[in-house]
């Protein structure tokens, strides 16, 4: 299974995560999910990190339910769905943390960008296993749709 994303969309995500550093930046990914599970991201939707203001914002992000409802509405109008989320890991690798696993949603791609020195060094995409036992990595395909 892979996740395809247009270079321009990925560039926007990188800009957002780099600007959020050293706090965690986050947002939602709108697109389509094919019958075989492949995901195509059409656009990104930056969401204000609801934990940016408190001390936890440097190692935590939170997308609130209102934000999620708004995103779903926006997706529906464009005949898209929420296919995933993105967030940054400032100064640590782009691998899901235990905390990520605990709070993860299924059938939802987690794009994690590792940010160091103010720039995104690496992105990787993960998806929770159906039995919640952990994440499996998806291939990230940077290509125009």
């Amino acid at each position: 299974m892979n996740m395809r994303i247009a270079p321009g969309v990925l560039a926007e995500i990188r800009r957002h995560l780099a600007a959020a550093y050293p706090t965690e930046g986050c947002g939602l990914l709108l697109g389509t999910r094919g019958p075989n599970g492949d995901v195509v991201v059409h656009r990104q939707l930056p969401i204000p990190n609801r934990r940016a203001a408190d001390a936890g914002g440097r190692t935590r992000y939170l997308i609130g339910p209102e934000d999620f409802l708004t995103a779903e509405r926006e997706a529906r109008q464009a005949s898209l769905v929420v296919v995933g989320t993105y967030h940054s890991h400032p100064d640590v690798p782009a691998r899901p943390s235990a905390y990520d696993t605990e709070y993860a949603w299924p059938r939802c791609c987690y794009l994690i960008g590792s940010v160091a020195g103010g720039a995104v060094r690496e992105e990787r995409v993960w998806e929770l296993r159906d039995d919640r036992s952990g994440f499996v990595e998806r291939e990230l395909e940077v290509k125009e749709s």
Partner: protein
Amino acid sequence: MPVTVHIPTPLRPYVGGRDTVATSAGTVGEILERLAAEHAQLRAHLYRDDGRLRTFVNVYLNARDIRDLERQATRAADGDEVSIVPSIAGGAVAVATALPELTHAEILRYSRHLILPEVGPGGQRRIKAARVLLVGAGGLGSPAALYLAAAGVGTIGLVDFDAVDATNLQRQILHGTGVVGRPKLESAEARLQDLNPHVRVETFPVRLTSENALEILRDFDVVVDGTDNFPTRYLVNDACVLLGKPNVYGSIFRFEGQASVFHAAAGPCYRCLYPEPPPPGLVPSCAEGGVLGVLPGIIGSIQALETLKLILAAGDTLVGRLILFDALKFRFRELALRKDPDCPLCGPNPSVRELIDYEAFCGIGAAPAYDGAEITATDLARDLRENQDLEILDVRETREWEICRIPGARLIPLGQLPERLSELDGHKEIVTHCHKGIRSMRALEILRAAGFSRVRSLKGGIDAWATEVDPSVPRY
């Protein structure tokens, strides 16, 4: 008209790809339970293992959060809409407390750290978040405190009750000539604040005791042992083991130093290495035996280094390893330390479960062996004028004798005394003396054991003689 349940995108695959599911009226709890019963795979994502709804599953009745209504007991009637709405959370590392941010001034100051892969901005923020306690602001504490403050350790605690003495300045580089006589913590705090105003210095101008140690150590992440005596060293070790904190150990004597990290959670403690303290007087202190001023600079810097590695969780620390440094030969040796399975403190069956009386444990502070064994310098001066038969026995080393001496005294270094007893006249009263009055008590014990009955020891040694009787004698 039934109740409509809105399913969020991530959960739709579990309900056949639908975005809504119709169900009959009931409480929200019943509706969700019904949903989970009908779609088995959904359950794990809605409920935790203990059967409670996951924190990040939000449920709305029409447009209202059920947390603001009657939670899962909220009733949904025909025609109502129930929405399951995710909030999405995650984050980098599961840390108990968030790391503080670096200001622009700090980023500039620590730039040589920030470009190290092993430190970087994340590591520097860990250093900033760290709280390190230094027990002793002396020879070891000076370089350790200076380097830790320079490195940006957010909070440095200092425990010391001493005042700066001129003899400290040869090695205790926290303090300067202008502060002789002032409390060490006063000059240490000023020096550290000048070096790095981003660091918070907490001072404890007390003697560390069994009564206050746990209270003081409790709030720190790492403890650096810069003590110069055995009772405090055992006290620091025991308190660290009881509190589960790493103890960065260093000790120095003359030209030799030792360093290790005692962290009972990961390796041995100081008691695993030295279960019992040496008999009092066997191991001389630096005041008695001397120390090359640079040596604490080396060992204290090793302690600062190990402290930073513990904070950064970088590299291989000295846990389970004892470093022995011989400055004259210039040789570092490393001994592997094993956790003692019978350790009374950190072993599986500990007998020491709280702090004890460390002075007693180390055999110090016991009642004097002989009443009236000591004579003051003033009394000695008077007795000398009145009693021609008095012999003054200097038991210091030859090099000390070359610095200064009491007129008329005879020199027999303590180490040679047992073999040279025949040189002494048993009919005379003997007054033993050394530098500060400790070795002379040992000499007194040797003489009395050998049958000399009229022996006394000069209280405070030649140092007291210089201050009380003869100011022309230099102090050292």
